[in-house]
């Protein structure tokens, strides 16, 4: 791949994105997880790409307000890549909207797993081990050593992630587009995206049914019965049902209020 030289404008945007990418957990919530952090990180990019195009800007903001969740380091990489994709989408129409969504969805699951084990379960333990050894002898140096080993290294990595996410994203898309293979990429990205979303549904969505029905002397646990039909069938039903409502034009706020009401009524009649 030939080296792409960044111009001044791009450097400015990437620097701003790097600083903002530390806001990964901005207003974190259970509905969309890191979506607010991602939007905040994408703001310099979107403002740059869609300068003077209010409609496009709105659509891009809505796109990056979708559910997002991964580790803080690949977060920066995906943000840099999304900058590249948005730019290609706006300037050459080479990437379509659905591909942007699919690539984001495909990347978040595996990167989260990989980097959580690398940093949270490995580097953190090593750093804490060194620091605990020093601190238990009353040596203060353990604290800065922990911060350096676990925190500063991640921050440095985030810088390179956002930069190379953009550079390689741009050259990759250009190559695919110029050889006319964009429809093929679109198809394979959406296959991977949908597969990963299915896998994440299994891991994250949970319907905590706790309902036992008394039938004469035997008690039947409804969740076990349902899970014996197909494990976690309720999660699939819930997600697909909500998706159907959204496709019918229901607004997310209605769904959220609905879930609160459902959970409370369920708790009162004793099925949760």
């Amino acid at each position: 791949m030939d080296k792409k030289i960044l111009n001044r404008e791009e450097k400015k945007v990437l620097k701003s994105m790097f600083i903002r990418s530390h806001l990964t957990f901005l207003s974190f919530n259970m509905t969309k997880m890191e979506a607010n952090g991602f939007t905040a990180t994408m703001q310099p990019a979107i403002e740059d790409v869609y300068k003077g195009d209010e409609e496009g800007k709105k659509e891009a903001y809505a796109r990056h307000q979708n559910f997002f969740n991964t580790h803080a380091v690949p977060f920066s990489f995906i943000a840099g890549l999304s900058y590249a994709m948005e730019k290609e989408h706006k300037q050459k129409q080479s990437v379509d909207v659905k591909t942007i969504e699919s690539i984001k969805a495909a990347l978040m699951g595996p990167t989260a797993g990989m980097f959580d084990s690398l940093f949270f379960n490995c580097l953190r333990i090593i750093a804490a081990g060194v620091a605990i050894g020093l601190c238990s002898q009353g040596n203060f140096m353990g604290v800065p050593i922990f911060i350096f080993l676990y925190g500063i290294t991640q921050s440095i990595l985030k810088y390179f992630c956002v930069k190379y996410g953009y550079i390689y994203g741009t050259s990759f898309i250009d190559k695919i587009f110029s050889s006319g293979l964009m429809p093929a990429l679109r198809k394979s990205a959406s296959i991977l995206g949908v597969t990963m979303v299915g896998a994440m549904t299994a891991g994250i969505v949970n319907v905590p049914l706790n309902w036992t029905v008394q039938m004469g002397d035997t008690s039947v646990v409804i969740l076990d019965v349902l899970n014996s039909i197909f494990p976690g069938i309720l999660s699939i039903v819930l997600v697909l049902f909500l998706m159907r409502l959204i496709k019918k034009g229901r607004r997310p706020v209605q769904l959220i209020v609905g879930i609160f009401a459902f959970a409370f009524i369920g708790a009162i009649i004793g099925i949760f």
Partner: protein
Amino acid sequence: MSVITVALIGTLTYWIFFVLDPYILSWQCLNRPIVVAPILGLLLGDFQTGIIMGASLESIFMGISAIGGSVPADALSASIVAVCYTILTGSNVETGLAIALPIGTVMASLSSVVLSFSSALAPYWEKLAVSGKPRAFLAQNLVFSGLIYPLPNVIIIFLGIAFGVTGLSNTLNALPPFVMTGLTAASSMMVAVGFAILISMIWSKDVASFFFVGYVMAKILKMDSLSIAIIGGAIAITMFFYEKQLIDVKNSMVVSEKKSPDDEEDFF
């Protein structure tokens, strides 16, 4: 130092680390016991106890990881309360450590309640983001994350240090059970809304079946996400080259169609 002074210093330290942790450096760095306990010890005038407790608390909480959104015990609040308690009562380090874990568990369940309420704000953030006012979006998010969101935890931590930990768990137990169950249930189902929105964006008939493939690999075959990504990636790459062939064939047909009129002219 009076109880209230210690409680105020402890609470303020909690607030600062709670807010700073995810935004400076990375997640779970600055709010670890190994960092918090020595600094709180320094502020309360007993640096040595802080350092020693930091080492012990870190070894307790090191193995308790928070992956996938649910936190079994909150290390930050446990460290703050344990260090305050030890320095305040002058008791030995072990007693302080003994109350650390229960406090961590209580605070973790409280956090999930606060989190489920903050989910209700998701539509508001979306509206604000789409409105095209980037500064307002960032400013309001920062105010919310820095001042409003930590408030319930901050109040509980203050009351816990000032009036004792037992009062805290008694109050939580006095709530009617359906409140906590309802909130926990709502919180764990809330993520389905975010997922449903995401899926509705990338869903199409020709690839929808892969949703179930991914689901089965994760739920029934219990594969980790990297393995699923490798299998999914293999299918996607195969599909990519298959589509590439189709595109190549289509292109060559277009070329031959263009040629054919000339051929006909030559023939006649």
